[in-house]
């Protein structure tokens, strides 16, 4: 597989909650080493799409080809083991655990998670544990949480929780990173730090899908923006082009004339 191939190819994806089709025939690709922004009005299906990609939900129609494998129905643990990491729309922390443990728990293939080795064979995992602790420390330092390593995660502020979630996701060494509104309710300076870090992560070859509402933030991080409305992809392209798109303006202004056939414009820039 060449690195030019997209990391994820979403084809005609559909999911409904009861009678409401949250995602209805969405198709687009996410490239390696690029930040793909995902925008759209409330109820457009953005968060449902992340839940589908992370395996929490199983699509009712369509496929998610991740590195050529359809992950539909795999469930979150298996999807995560394949190299997809995520953050949550409302930051989820393990409140009573120290920040460093919150991050370390995300690392894959930990020998000491085997109960018998944990109790009776400490030397089998001690070195790995030390390396993980060092890596978690570096990651948290890199994200500006150096002073909070041992603080219970429940004491972090909203912005710090967002940063910690990114550190946790990176601890899993993802190939695809799903960021669900990483700057929602975050102080502008922290938001700028997140933008810088997201760009640096993408430079390492990680594919990033990022939901955001703040156009200023998006313009600094996203290579490409996918616009969703009513469960479909309206259009895709660089932010400045997409912003002037008539249908996008209509969708954002609430005029419900986003016609279904516009879903066909998948991938067109």
């Amino acid at each position, binding site marked *: 597989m060449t690195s030019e191939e997209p990391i994820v190819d979403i084809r005609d994806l559909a999911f409904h909650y009861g009678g409401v089709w949250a995602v209805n025939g969405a198709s687009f690709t996410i490239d390696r080493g690029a930040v793909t922004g995902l925008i759209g009005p409330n109820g457009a299906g953005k968060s449902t799409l992340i839940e589908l990609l992370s395996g929490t939900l199983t699509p009712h129609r369509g496929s998610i080809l991740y590195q050529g494998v359809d992950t539909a129905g795999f469930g979150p643990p298996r999807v*995560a083991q394949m190299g997809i990491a*995520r953050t949550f729309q409302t930051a989820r922390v393990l409140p*009573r655990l120290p920040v460093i443990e919150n991050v370390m728990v995300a690392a*894959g293939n930990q020998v000491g*998670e085997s*109960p018998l*080795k944990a109790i*009776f064979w400490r030397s089998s995992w001690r070195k790995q544990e030390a390396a993980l602790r060092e890596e978690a420390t570096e*990651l948290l330092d890199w994200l500006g949480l150096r002073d909070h390593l041992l603080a219970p995660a429940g004491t972090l502020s909203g912005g710090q929780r967002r940063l910690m979630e990114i550190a946790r996701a990176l601890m899993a060494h993802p190939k695809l990173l799903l960021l669900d509104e990483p700057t929602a309710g975050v102080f502008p300076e922290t938001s700028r730090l997140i933008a810088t870090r997201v760009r640096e992560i993408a430079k390492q070859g990680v594919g990033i899908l990022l939901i955001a509402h703040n156009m200023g933030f998006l313009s600094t991080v996203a290579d490409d923006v996918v616009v969703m409305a009513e469960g479909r992809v309206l259009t895709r392209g660089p932010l400045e082009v997409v912003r002037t798109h008539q249908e996008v303006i209509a969708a954002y202004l609430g005029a419900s004339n986003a016609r279904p056939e516009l879903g066909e414009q998948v991938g067109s820039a």
Partner: protein
Amino acid sequence: MLFFFTDLLVLGCINAIMVVGLNLHYGYAGLLNFAFYMYVAIGAYIAAVTTMGSPTFPGVTYIFGWTLPWWVGLILGGLVAAAVSVVIFAFTVRRLRSDYLAIVTVSAAFIMLNVVNSFTPLFDGGTGLFNVPPITGNLSISSEGYSLVMLAVTAVILALFVWVSQRIFRSPFGRLLRGIREDEAVTTAFGHASWRPQLWIFVIGSFMAGIAGGLFVLYISAWNPGAFLPIESFFLLSSLIIGGSGNYWGAMLGAFVVIEGLAELSRYSPTFGNPADAGAIRAIVIGVALILVLRYRPEGLIPERWLRWYRVGAGNVVRRFPALRRNVP
């Protein structure tokens, strides 16, 4: 007087083993198990019937009667308790969460109680078992001497189980369990199915419960269904929460302070009304203590966070991008 203290300490150690085991279930993994005393009872029964001889008294019936050495019976009790916990786990923990799990575990305890009570061939029904051989065998020994021997045995086993608890707490396995307890969605999203580590901790905790039950029956030499009323599980859980859920020192403190201290205190409280109300007074005292702790110190007397053992190095402040370095060829 000496006997009074050694007796208290032996019972305290046995209770501490139970609470340390329950701490693995509830403190480490967040599994709200109200049937914990059921595993204690299973351990006690199995240890009793495997070390006793065949029934000799008329009208007394029980299974086995293998006259095995005490330590074999003790371990068998623990293993059977652990095996039963696997079955219970398959039907409850894997499918149910918190409050629902609690209801089902309470039901399981009542079912078990009723089966043992009414099916006499198993463990002699409501009359229960008595004349369980002491661990000193035929050696003639005073009750004071015996309590000293038992104190040594229980203390060693308690120390062993605390060591196991500590190993688990400080390991990635313990961290994963805490993660599942705090927010299962996070650990699941990072590649961990919850049931496997939960099953392991459930089995380990139940094994400890079985051992505690075996030690109990070997010490007091008798056991009947009246000894494992489901209320006992509430006392254990209360003492764990008061002592500090998630912290093995807290679990031990809870066992000694709540079960020993408060229970014994209420035994010596001035008698008024019917002396048979002592049990009710015990429940009231523990209930009040639980409410006070939950109101003023919800993490318990010795909180889990006091167990932080590691330091994060002050050096190696890194500004470069550190992630993914193990992926680089």
